[in-house]
């Protein structure tokens, strides 16, 4: 009886795994199709990868996406790590406030962040631009929605993710080394540089890669605040709206491979840092 249930549960689970991976596998398979229709297999070829690579619109979108993801992930890593270190010393209501903000920034749907950031920047630039005109004359720079606004919006939630990852690593960190370093008259800066930072580095790198992936894959926030610019997800979305082309399959496959590669590294970094934390504890 128990075996029967176990067998049917196992069978059921296998079906769920097929359900989860079959659509993704199909996209990868279709990307190597030489035919003109996405769902009409003709034969194996790299034709669509070539055509995608030669498409100036795709390249423009790709450049924008890489620039946005690299910049916002860098900012998010620095700001998130700084904040995680600082929050160790914060207690009471201030701590509760920050915990609430971190939680909200992560859980809030992207569309709300998109709308809020759109309104904020449009209002802010609407106020700033006339002042710049008065101060610097008609040749003054005029601020508008663009890649920097996307970077700012992405940094809000990716920073919070880095913060959570680094903070959990700080909690699992071996404090006796820091105390030893202090006892041996190391300056606080040296202690941080030589003892704390090396212990936190795997978590910081994992945070950077996750932040990059999130920013690179984001559609809805960029859709609101990118202004006239396109990112890769915006390009893919409008292509799907116009009718499915095999180029999307090629873009999707490359994106998937990149995210999976990053995810694998993240997993490796985090398990290794946890393992070393356990070893240190023993």
């Amino acid at each position, binding site marked *: 009886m128990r075996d029967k249930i*176990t067998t049917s*549960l*196992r069978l*059921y*689970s296998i079906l*769920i*795994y097929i*359900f*989860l*991976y079959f*659509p*993704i596998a*199909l*996209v990868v398979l*279709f990307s190597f199709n030489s035919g003109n229709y*996405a*769902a009409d297999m003709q034969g194996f070829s790299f034709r669509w990868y070539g055509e995608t690579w030669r498409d100036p619109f795709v390249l423009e979108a790709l450049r924008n996406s890489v620039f946005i993801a690299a910049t916002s992930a860098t*900012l998010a890593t620095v*700001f998130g790590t*700084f*904040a995680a270190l*600082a929050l160790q*010393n*914060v207690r009471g209501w201030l701590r509760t406030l*920050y915990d609430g*903000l971190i939680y909200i*920034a992560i*859980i*809030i*749907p992207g569309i*709300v962040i998109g*709308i*809020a950031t*759109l*309104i*904020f920047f*449009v209002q802010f630039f609407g106020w700033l631009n006339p002042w710049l005109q008065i101060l610097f004359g008609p040749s003054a720079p005029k601020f508008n929605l663009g890649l920097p606004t996307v970077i*700012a*919006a992405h*940094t*809000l939630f990716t920073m919070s993710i880095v913060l959570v990852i680094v903070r959990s690593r700080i909690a699992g960190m071996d404090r006796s080394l820091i105390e030893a370093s202090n006892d041996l008259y190391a300056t606080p800066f040296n202690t941080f540089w030589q003892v704390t930072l090396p212990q936190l580095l795997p978590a910081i790198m994992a945070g950077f890669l*996750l932040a990059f*992936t999130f920013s690179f*894959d984001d*559609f*809805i926030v960029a*859709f609101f605040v990118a202004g006239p610019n396109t990112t890769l*997800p915006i390009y*893919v*979305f409008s292509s*799907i709206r116009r009718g*499915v082309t095999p180029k*999307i399959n090629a873009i*999707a496959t490359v*994106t*998937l491979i990149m*995210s*999976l590669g990053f*995810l694998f590294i993240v*997993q490796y970094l985090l398990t290794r840092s946890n393992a070393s934390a356990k070893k240190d504890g023993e």
Partner: protein
Amino acid sequence: MVNNTTHRKKSIRTWLPTALLLAPASLWYLFLLIAPLVIVAVFSFGARAPEGGYAPAFTLEQYLKLPTRSTPFVNTLWLASLGTVSCILIAYPLAYYLATRASAKAKSILVALIIVPFWTSFLIRTYAWVTILSSRGIPAILASLGIVHDLVLLNTPFAITLGIVYNYLPLMTFPLYVSLERLDKRLLEASKDLGANRLATFFQITLPLSASGLITGSMLVFILLMGEYLIPALLGGGKIFFVGNALVDLFLQSRNWPFGSAVAMALNFIMIIIISVYLWLTSRLGGESREEVSLF
């Protein structure tokens, strides 16, 4: 006195770096989270400027207009509920298998395989189903086999629910798995020894003790579904509007910001209710499970 000054010096030495390290994150939270949400709240009481955008006013007009746009709210609430319940029903047996039956060695890989799709592009995962459900996909295969002709799958409530289940299943499975994994297996044996059958054991022990995972998973899925845009836009073909689609329309196309802000405020209000219910349920649950533990 001396003690006091050294104490003060020391405290300056700790709080100054703390404040500096916290400054960039604080700026971001202030200007890109708190201030924008306050502006949305202010706008929702405003009027529409003739050329689009916002004109200062203090009126409840936008909120009074909300009932005229109730369809997206109704669609979102019922399809989000249907999607969440489907996620629970489909995820539960899987989480149960992973937590109680899978071998320890396979477990970590199997759990990782559940989470992996969730970190890949949401847009691409949804797009995959557009290909499968479109007229060249499953309907074409079924027609060529002579089973059903003229089957329409894309742009239906079914397609949207399928998209929801596919995209949010990992988010439901993971908390369920964690709560079932934590469950003390001796309780199941005790129940069996006391003569309870499998069904009674499941409903009286397994289900109540996995309630925390069930509630967490449901809250996460439901909240994210409230702001969903891509699934109805791509799999519903714009025929079935969610609140997210209405917001994109109001902010980016018709540029009716005050009314859009009122819709966004209504959405925030629904999310606050969900989170409050979640906190209330978990605090009640926490109290009860503590009592149960003390009974044993």
